[in-house]
């Protein structure tokens, strides 16, 4: 089903729904925040909406820090129903990839259930974007409850899920639109897909021999500039490595889950001190092998939605395509 929202009605509508729901929007080039009138829709934000589902600090257990005390499970902090507007289709697709792994995770699931995700199609792909090459069709809006397409006078909204339908059922600002509008959406989709094909490299990667890739000699050279910082992993809408920590202040304790990065030495260090990925090269390799081989073999898709954040923000100038090229032409 399709609706239409005039451009000037958008802010008003966001304020209206803010009265009933918690509403988050992109507020600046850096990322999302609660809607308070500020809206940044020009480009995708540095931090994706991943932080709403794998938050910076997820409490999973509370305890009293004294011998013999039993921990009390929280399982999940109560999350209020919330709406996130302005999520880019590639980022939403990223959530569906994370879901393949976190499908059973009660925290992630609860957050998914309680969230209505409203997507916004980019007017044009950004300079570093390559979602289509990774097989993402932004018009399909995977992972979203509704998708906004910006047109001359306003937004054409495609509903994608029962949650989306329920939300829009009684929103006065939106008018139902007929076939013509729907066709314009389909036309835009068709034009986009014709111009933006999937990368042939993915098929080659599927066929490539895992051990040969692992042992290839190109890793050393490619990894030399890499700082093994966590920028690419933290900004990536599909990276989901995490750490679990016990935090204690005085007698109060909390077990928390937080984002971590396979780029870090600490991430793979065992309690014994042994580290199977001690060298920086091994950690660099892991990031790409995970995305473009292990995950691809396991789920049939790469763990990358082509948002280009890693390429855009890597301080060392590492470009993912140079790595894919090396991997797929071995």
């Amino acid at each position, binding site marked *: 089903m399709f609706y239409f929202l005039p451009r000037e009605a958008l802010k008003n509508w966001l304020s209206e729904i803010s009265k009933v729901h918690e509403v988050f929007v992109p507020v600046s080039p850096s990322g999302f925040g609660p809607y308070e009138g500020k809206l940044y829709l020009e480009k995708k934000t540095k931090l994706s909406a991943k932080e709403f589902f794998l938050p910076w*600090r997820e409490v999973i257990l509370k305890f009293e820090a004294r011998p013999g005390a039993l921990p009390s499970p929280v399982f999940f902090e109560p999350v209020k129903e919330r709406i996130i507007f302005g999520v880019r289709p590639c980022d939403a697709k990223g959530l569906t990839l994370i879901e393949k792994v976190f499908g059973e995770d009660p925290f992630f699931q609860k957050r998914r259930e309680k969230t209505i995700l409203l997507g916004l199609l980019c007017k044009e792909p950004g300079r570093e974007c390559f979602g289509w090459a990774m097989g993402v069709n932004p018009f399909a809006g995977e992972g979203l409850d509704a998708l906004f397409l910006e047109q001359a006078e306003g937004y054409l909204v495609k509903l994608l899920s029962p949650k989306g339908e329920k939300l829009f059922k009684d929103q006065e600002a939106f008018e139902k639109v007929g076939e013509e509008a729907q066709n314009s959406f389909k036309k835009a989709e068709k034009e986009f897909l014709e111009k933006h094909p999937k990368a042939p490299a993915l098929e080659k990667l599927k066929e490539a021999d895992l051990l040969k890739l692992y042992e290839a000699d190109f890793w050393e050279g490619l990894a030399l500039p890499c700082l093994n910082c966590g920028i690419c992993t933290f900004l990536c809408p599909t990276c989901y490595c995490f750490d679990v920590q016990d935090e204690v202040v005085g007698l109060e304790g909390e077990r928390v889950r937080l984002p971590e990065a396979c780029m870090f030495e600490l991430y793979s260090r065992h309690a014994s001190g042994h580290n199977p990925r001690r060298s920086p090269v091994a950690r660099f390799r892991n990031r790409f092998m995970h995305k473009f081989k292990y995950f691809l073999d396991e789920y049939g898709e790469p763990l990358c939605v082509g948002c280009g954040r890693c390429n855009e923000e890597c301080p060392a100038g590492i470009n993912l395509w140079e790595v894919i090229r090396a991997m797929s032409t071995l």
Partner: protein
Amino acid sequence: MSWEPRIIAFLCNWCSYAGADLAGVSRLRYPPTIRIVRVPCSSRVSPAMILDALKSGADGVLVSGCHPGDCHYLTGNLFARRRFFMLKKLLEFVGLEPERVQFAWVSASEGDVFAKVVSELTEKIKLLGPNTRFRKILGGKI
């Protein structure tokens, strides 16, 4: 009950700790606000230890060692002096109340100086009030 500051005092084993001991033995009066951590030398105290004390809820931190020339390890305190100077400048720069982190020289025979140092520091911190700026609260601000 009125609020009493809690101050963590890192005292070097050879001078200041003995100085504190002397203050006790001599029955000098000073406020019961300090918790002593005995360290081998003032140069053993690192900024992470000082900041960790504040983070864990201390209202003030005192580091005290032997007078220059008297360090058991000859020059430990002279190295420490430079480091503390730099640390103090840094803390002030980011807006941490400078009174909360203090350094002193107290020899083994200066029980009276030790008592004065603690009294003075306690007064200063009472004026400031509890450390809320640099104290970690579980699930606090992110």
